[in-house]
């Protein structure tokens, strides 16, 4: 078979069947961007073709978002919460993953199983009692309520991911360091962590993404408008009664997704490896 014919066969048997999947995945995101840039007159005119912008681009929805809503506060809140929760979760994850991957101690296996179970606990199982706990701790209606509760699902994830990663690092390099007089904490920080940097980056990326995307806890624990996170702010403050600001909503959704999409474009391989490690290992 000539290479040209093989190439054509590829187009028909591979690229054409994959096209609907790519379209299905991307169209809603494309439509989100298009809607956010359309003038209201065109947006609400059912006689025009909705797929592209026919009557000029406008940044009006973005300007409105900036000037008439607390959008940038929500953005900042999301950033603070996600960074805080990520730092805490990765730190606790590293500490817990190390003994689980390397050391033998009574209760180790049980703790491993407990981590696995909490990893599978969905947030919607515990949000009601957690509301009570958050209120009792005096954290309700503050960003701390989220910085403290997000690690409940992030720590198990980071621990699980890093445990798998630490196991792939050969034991011997640590044993050498210990013969030279390093203790466990020193070997972890000076020997294992530098080798495990990709694993740590992966855990941090996922922790950040999951925090940024979280919706239920942010909706329940924080009610003042100026303290809301991105996801909740756009949803609850831009929909007033029966009036929907579709242009503004889509503009908010675009900017709210942007940080994650940027991180994703730069770290695609980490996302892929983290995604499969989470389920396969």
């Amino acid at each position, binding site marked *: 078979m000539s290479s040209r014919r093989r190439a054509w066969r590829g187009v028909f048997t591979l690229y054409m069947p*994959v096209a609907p999947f790519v379209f299905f995945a991307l169209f809603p995101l494309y439509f989100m961007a298009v*809607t956010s840039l359309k003038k209201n007159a065109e947006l609400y005119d059912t006689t025009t073709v909705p797929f592209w912008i026919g009557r000029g681009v406008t940044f009006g929805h973005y300007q409105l978002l900036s000037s008439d809503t607390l959008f940038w506060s929500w953005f900042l809140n999301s950033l603070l919460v996600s960074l805080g929760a990520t730092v805490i979760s990765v730190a606790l994850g590293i500490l817990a993953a190390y003994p689980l991957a390397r050391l033998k101690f009574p209760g180790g296996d049980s703790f491993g199983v407990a981590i*696995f179970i909490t990893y599978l606990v969905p947030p919607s199982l515990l949000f009601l009692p957690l509301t009570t706990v958050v209120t009792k701790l005096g954290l309700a209606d503050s960003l701390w309520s989220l910085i403290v509760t997000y690690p*409940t699902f992030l720590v198990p994830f980071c621990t699980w991911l890093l445990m798998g990663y630490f196991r792939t690092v050969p034991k011997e390099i640590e044993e050498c360091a210990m013969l030279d007089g390093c203790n466990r904490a020193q070997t972890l920080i000076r020997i294992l962590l530098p080798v495990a940097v990709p694993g740590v980056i992966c855990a941090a990326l996922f922790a950040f993404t999951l925090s940024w995307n979280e919706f239920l806890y942010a909706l329940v624990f924080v009610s003042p408008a100026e303290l809301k996170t991105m996801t909740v702010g756009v*949803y609850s403050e831009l929909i007033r009664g029966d009036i929907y600001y579709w242009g503004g*909503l889509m503009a908010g959704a675009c900017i709210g997704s942007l940080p994650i999409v940027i991180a994703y474009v730069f770290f695609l391989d980490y996302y892929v490896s983290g995604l499969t490690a989470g389920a396969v290992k």
Partner: protein
Amino acid sequence: MRLRTLNGEVAKVAARGDAPPRALTDVLGRDTPIAYTFIAPAFFLLLFLVAYPFVLSLWFSLSDARVGETGHWVGLDNFRKLLGSDTFRQTLQNSLVFTAAALGAKTIFGMALALLLFRIGRFKRLIRGAVLLPFIVPTALSTLVWWWMFEPLYSVVNWTLKALHVVNRDIPWLPDPYLAMFTVVLVNTWRGLPFFAITILAGLVAIPKEMYEAAESDGAGPAARFWHITLPLLKPVLAVVILFSAIFTLADFNIVYVLTKGGPINMTHLFATYSFQIGLQSGQIGQGAAISLFLFPILLMIVFTQLRLVRKATTYE
């Protein structure tokens, strides 16, 4: 499992000719304090913010607690009331339909997509990157665009269907109970498909090429190779992906809350959204906790099966 490794250590130590008892306490004694110190922060976090809330949730479900009131012990009243309530039975049925339909769609299309991605050479990174995107974009925000796409007056889906003369009237996607269920399943599939495809793809990559070559030389066609090699060897990966996704599909909150709020007439309520409505919006925490606890036995079953699968995989290694 620990017993076996312990015996292993003993055997190793004995083989080296050391005195077993001292060496054994050495092995355990030296690392134990440091292991506990390292684990302590994670342990206490999970104890106070997962285990304690769980116990609290059990207590709530057995009481008539309301927002701001501790409530009194009512035994299994909440559960009895729920099982007698039409809305809750509808929620049970919805959860079953939603989870089964979404899992089925994600498995079948995820498998198809993975098989395609596996064979693609050119633009591999670009296509994989594009296909994965729905999974990482914030669900609460991406569901908003789906809502806009199915909006009664300006729906782009209806516009297209009318332009193609498939229908001549607007289809009531979200106001119609059955179509609303279809829509939430569709959005859940959109979001979850990348996870299935990428994980199954990782499973496909792990299958040794020699097996296909051997089968091909024995005259097995593409279909036979799929049924007799690909599928059996993918079983462990498929099982893990489906079980994992089963929990999070069943416990879904974002998509249903944003798109339908459980309506029309409770026809898309899932445990999470119904528990949110009863527990927070009507303030009946006891009843709400009981609703979300229905997730627990299913969760437990899945965890148990997963652990067995993981153990089996490690013994084969």
